[in-house]
């Protein structure tokens, strides 16, 4: 991932303002010539993180490949909201086959491209968390261990939102879904379950694994760019808040995504050939409550009958991530804050 010295943070958001950057450093999204891979007019909900995340990543991939890209999509929100027949929002070569087979279909696409000598065309497989960590897991693991020439990208909204918000193996503990209701002594999703797919992908020794959120566009685009510099199997895990399923305000999508990272609940990092090569440090350490309280799926932990014991267990998960990935760098943290207070002359 390419980095540059940060000069200024916008108040409250930490987002790097494009207006302060040179043309070549601005995001793909800020360019009016971008592909707009998923065109406007689709039927995603207001504030949909998935629509944002997928478009950001695909537009960046289109730039990285000079437009030589084919995308294979698993069944899910992204597929449904983008292609109600006979309309399609896709401005790129795009295919949907089934829920659980996107990595295998992408394998076939990549194989056909090799046979046809079109080695400049790159292949992206994409799906939601259900199509990745659950029903598509076998095909994804197979494609990963074979080192298929695919970037598989999951837009993870932590549940089956298209079918009415049910639990997936990416749903966090304690979260309320239609199949992990808030009844009984342990309301919401069970602790101690779920799959950490970025780490599982790393265990396949694939060329590149990265996580990102829709809150940091520069980081996300840089990771897509980086992924396209590798060949073989690559995995990009993008956390995308779902206002419908998470019960968050639709104008808070970016904020919620940022807090997922700042709390440590969603570690943002990249790894090459199974080894972590960089982590996005937490800039302002935030207790998990700040993140949880923005989402109705965790509302049962607060309010009339609060469950600080459960909140504590979630904080422990965040702490473990912080330790595992070294997400806090106290010295750097202090230095950055000092710099941000300097007023440019």
């Amino acid at each position, binding site marked *: 991932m390419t980095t540059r010295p940060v000069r200024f943070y916008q108040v409250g958001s930490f987002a790097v303002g494009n207006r302060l950057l040179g043309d070549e450093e601005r995001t793909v999204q800020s360019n009016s010539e971008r592909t707009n891979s998923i065109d406007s007019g689709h039927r995603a909900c207001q504030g949909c993180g998935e629509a944002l995340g997928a478009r950001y990543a695909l537009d960046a991939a289109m730039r990285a490949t000079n437009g030589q890209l084919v995308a294979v999509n698993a069944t899910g929100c992204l597929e449904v909201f983008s*292609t109600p027949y006979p309309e399609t929002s896709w401005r790129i*070569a795009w*295919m*949907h086959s089934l829920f659980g087979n996107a990595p295998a279909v992408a394998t076939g*696409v990549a194989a056909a491209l090799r046979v046809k000598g079109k080695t400049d065309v790159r292949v992206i497989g994409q799906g939601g968390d259900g199509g990745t960590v659950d029903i598509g897991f076998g095909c994804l*693991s197979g494609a990963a261990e074979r080192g298929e020439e695919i970037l598989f990208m999951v837009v993870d909204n932590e549940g089956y939102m298209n079918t009415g918000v049910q639990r997936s193996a990416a749903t966090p503990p304690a979260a309320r879904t239609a199949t992990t209701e808030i009844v009984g002594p342990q309301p919401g999703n069970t602790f101690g379950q779920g799959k950490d797919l970025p780490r599982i992908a790393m265990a396949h020794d694939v060329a590149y694994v990265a996580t990102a959120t829709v809150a940091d566009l520069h980081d996300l685009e840089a990771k897509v760019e980086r992924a396209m510099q590798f060949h073989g199997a690559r995995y990009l895990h993008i956390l995308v808040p779902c206002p419908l399923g998470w019960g968050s305000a639709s104008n808070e999508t970016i904020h919620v995504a940022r807090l997922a990272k700042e709390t440590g609940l969603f570690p943002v990092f990249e790894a090459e050939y199974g080894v972590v090569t960089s982590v996005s440090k937490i800039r302002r350490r935030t207790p998990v409550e700040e993140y949880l309280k923005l989402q109705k799926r965790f509302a049962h932990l607060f309010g009339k009958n609060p469950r600080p014991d459960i909140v504590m267990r979630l904080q422990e998960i965040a702490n473990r991530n912080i330790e595992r990935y070294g997400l806090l760098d106290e010295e750097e943290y202090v230095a950055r804050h000092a710099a941000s207070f300097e007023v440019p002359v």
Partner: protein
Amino acid sequence: MLRQIEGSRAVAETVALCRPEVVCAYPISPQTHIIEAVGVMVKEGRLSPCEFINVESEFAAMSVAIGASATGARAYTATASQGLLYMMEAVYNAAGLGLPIVMTLANRAIGAPINIWNDHSDAMAVRDSGWIQLFAETNQEAADLHVQAFRLAEELSVPVMVCMDGFILTHAVEGVDLLDQETVDAFLPPYDPRQMLDPEHPVSIGAMVGPEAFEEVRYLAHLRQLDALHRIPAIADEFEAATGRRSGGLVSSYRTEDADTIVVALGSVLGTIKDAVDVRREEGDRIGVVGITSFRPFPSVAVRRALNDASQVIVLEKAFSIGHGGVLATDVAMALQGTDCVLRNVIAGLGGRAITRSSLEELFATAAKGELGALLFLDLNTDVVDREIERMTAVRRSGPSAENVLRDLGLPREVGRAS
């Protein structure tokens, strides 16, 4: 070139002549020899450019074929039995998307109880999927049908399944006249896809279709299959003109001219049936055979014509719809609507049970006397069935039926009865 060769090998050599571009493989008996042989040829570089992909499941195998076909490559795979069921969702998907994949189905029973031997339960399970299903009677026909299958699939943008009896054909070594590359190249032009994933001309494939258009899309698939009813015999004629050999087509007839009884069947059992019919003919029975090569699309008109004036039709099949009866018989009954023809249904050869000539002779003799019932299970061991029913009636926890039956068969009769 005439060679003494295993059926699987003959199919593999013929598929290779068809210049497949992406071949996906997942092992399942009795299909494995085909895919192993193709794999060697790919690895040796004989089929270059061709990709051979060892996938992690049959579901992935068909999915890889879907992706490859949608990217303009000629895609091939083979499977059987449980494998076909495991890829079922993708089987339907390939047809729904109109992707001309060719797949060999080495017909095998479906468990439980697990059984690796031949019957047609697997093919019947996907008969409504939208695939064209062609049944081979011999290894020669199995090989030839693959060349015709690629041609047919790509002309119509419909996937084609070549069904050949597991073990009985796949593992049988017999003389097969293999085609040469020149003949196949002249017969089978390069694949020119109707739809393709291409960044230069981006299209969306596999969009969501609601009630406003779903019926029309499905009806178009039906029309393509109806079109196949014309193309299958035409392609068989062209194949004959190119090779001098008759293979494929919709149906085949044997000694039906004056027959009042006609036996209808699919696949390799037709050979045994013909032998038994020859014997009965010598006894004076007016009996003939109609083999159905194209099971989907089902050639109702051709079947009706082939059964012409028979007063009795015996549909003998290696699969059935539990709780109902024969699947093929139901289709034949539709074709015979409005005639006075009496339809008899015989279920035989399940899970690889040998369909012997003597059993068939006895069956046909019974039929000649007009004593055949509407539905018969050939060579059913009623003794073990009765014993299991007895056991189930006697105690609630009678245990697993399959194991009980096996134990009964393995023990001396008196001991078995006591257990």
